[in-house]
């Protein structure tokens, strides 16, 4: 699987990215990549720099150095708008929904459809929302209520629908299931697999290692702003990934005693 992927240029490559906040290296010379139809997990403890790294791709954070490539071409992403224009959609941990607006308005937040009179095309937006949501969650019917009154899973559904509607090629999901119950988590996982089958590349940021093991093909581990390494899920055990997260040692470097101490 990996050999045939490396033959092509990756869908996205973040090369030698660095971000610092007042002398603290939040992200220090990190390189990760992603292929079409692949889910890459980015894991690490709190403050490891996962979210900051990925924000450089979503346009929410400027990198101090490094270069982003999409389809092998260098691109410059300075604002969320730039990222969206390149097919990068982000689903944030905080959901990034305006609670007072209904789901169609949220789907089209900042990219509202307008009629030829330059007025908002609410019916058109509702129609598009209904079409996407039928694909994702056929039971969903609450198109006219503020998203504040939706459940966590439904809200996540709106955020995902937004990405799907705008034909994301690259999807960034920052802790997509952190706020969800078990059934809703399963629903979101199902969605991610479906998107993956459609050829979308997904960066999954999570500190839930089970989530990542369940979904991702490759796992990139960060610790204190640095990349510990990227491993194929099938080649490692969960404990070995834990060792990378906690003590920053690759599976070939870590000793048996260290692995046992992880559970001590």
């Amino acid at each position, binding site marked *: 699987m990996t050999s045939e992927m490396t033959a092509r240029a990756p869908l996205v490559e973040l090369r030698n990215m660095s971000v610092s906040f007042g002398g603290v290296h939040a992200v220090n010379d990190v390189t990760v990549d992603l292929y079409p139809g692949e889910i890459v997990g980015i894991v690490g403890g709190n403050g490891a720099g996962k979210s900051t790294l990925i924000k450089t791709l979503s346009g929410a954070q400027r990198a101090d150095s490094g270069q982003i490539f999409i389809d092998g071409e260098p691109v410059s992403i300075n604002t969320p708008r730039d990222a969206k224009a390149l097919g990068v959609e982000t689903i944030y941990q905080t959901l990034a929904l305006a609670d007072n607006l209904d789901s169609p308005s949220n789907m089209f937040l*900042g990219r509202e459809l307008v009629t030829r009179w330059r007025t908002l095309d609410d019916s058109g937006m509702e129609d598009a929302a209904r079409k996407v949501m039928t694909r994702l969650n056929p039971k969903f019917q*609450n198109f006219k209520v503020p998203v504040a009154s939706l459940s966590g899973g439904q809200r996540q559904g709106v955020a995902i629908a937004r990405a799907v509607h705008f034909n994301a090629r690259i999807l960034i999901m920052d802790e997509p299931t952190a706020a969800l119950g078990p059934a809703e988590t399963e629903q979101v996982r199902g969605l991610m697999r479906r998107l993956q089958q459609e050829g979308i590349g997904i960066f999954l940021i999570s500190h839930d290692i089970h989530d990542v093991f369940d979904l991702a093909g490759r796992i990139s581990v960060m610790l204190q702003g640095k990349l510990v390494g990227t491993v194929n899920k099938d080649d490692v055990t969960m404990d070995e990934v834990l060792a990378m997260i906690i003590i920053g040692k690759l599976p070939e470097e870590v000793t048996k005693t260290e692995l046992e101490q992880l559970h001590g």
Partner: protein
Amino acid sequence: MSVVEAPPTQSDTPEQSTRRSFGSFLRDNEIDTRMAGMIALLLVIWVGFHFLSGGTFLTPRNLWNLSVQTSTVGIMATGMVLVIVSRNIDLSVGSMVGVVGMVMAILQFEWLPPLMGLGNQWIWIITIVIGLALGALIGAFQGSIIAYAGVPSFIVTLGGLLVWRGFAWLTASGRTLAPMDATFQLLGGGSRGSLGETGSWVVGGVACIGIVALLVLGRRRRRKFGFRLRPMWLDVTLGVFGCAVVLGAVWVTNSYYLPESIAREVAEERGIPWPQGGLQIPLGIPYPVLILIGVTLVMGFIANRRRFGRNIYAIGGNPEAAELGGINTRRTIVKTFMTMGILVGVSAAVSIARLNAAVSGLGTLSELYVIAAAVIGGTSLSGGIGTIPGAILGALVMQSLQSGMVLLGVGAPMQDVVLGVVLVTAVAIDATFRRRTAR
């Protein structure tokens, strides 16, 4: 998706659905329950005062005056809704009315007549254009400091409250400027400043056609996309109710007649012989109210049908999400304050026209009435929630209370006490209501 009836929500147990049936019926049919409640409240206030005052409240004369008195606050309240929805506040509008009013007065009183000749028909137009431009400029200036320098709007406009009041005085060294240009005066809705009988019926007729057209177009659009339609009887009821309100209001304004002395003048001008027993000339819709209606329509359109408006609501709901969604939040904030400034210009024009004079204290404390109108009308100070028609109703509720108390002979200090209590009570009820329906 082409079925007309929506399938019932699955989570509804029978008892839940009966308990919520009326509320959800209204919601399913996109009827604003808050609005309906406010209209009911207004009617209660009106009928209450009518009885307490021994039948003087619901008279054409009182309602006509009430509508004129509501317009200056109402015009600004529509802009204040958007400012508050965007999680900001504008405390400077009263002082802005002062300085903009002063500049407009000095233009038509001192600067333009020597250049163009006294009574030139262009004077009032140029005055208004410059006044609105000045309002827009001040608004944009304050908005830029808020959006780009990151100073909280409370502080910027608190500063503005002092600065613009100071400039209002400095513009004419504290003099009172009067009178205004003859045409300009009409904007204030004095005895000559209204549309007259025929014109008012025409406006009412056009409004009715508009209401029906909106309902029909709404149905057509929903059918095109295969969405659920309102039941026909409900649309018909809404249409009939809307037209009845409009035509009723026109009838009221047409039932208020010019006082005899002015009626004599008008009769003379038109060459009508003064008949035995006098002549009853209906006033019709006052110009300030016409302006208020126009402003409400434009602002409602901006708030609901334009991207700019939707973006303001998005910023109020979640500024971070708006930014991440690609909305240019800073520019939107500047434009919001600019809109507020233009409305201040409109309101200032009506104010000085009505007073037929400009004084440097013009508009003092009106920021508080404007904010109160928006808030009583359901605008939430935490942002994201508020409607333009709500603010107009809020302004009308406040003005009704004030006029009603005047009719009852309640003194000014007690009026303030009542208004203050009503403001807080309205918000408290609203907050409880909102918390309940959020569940």
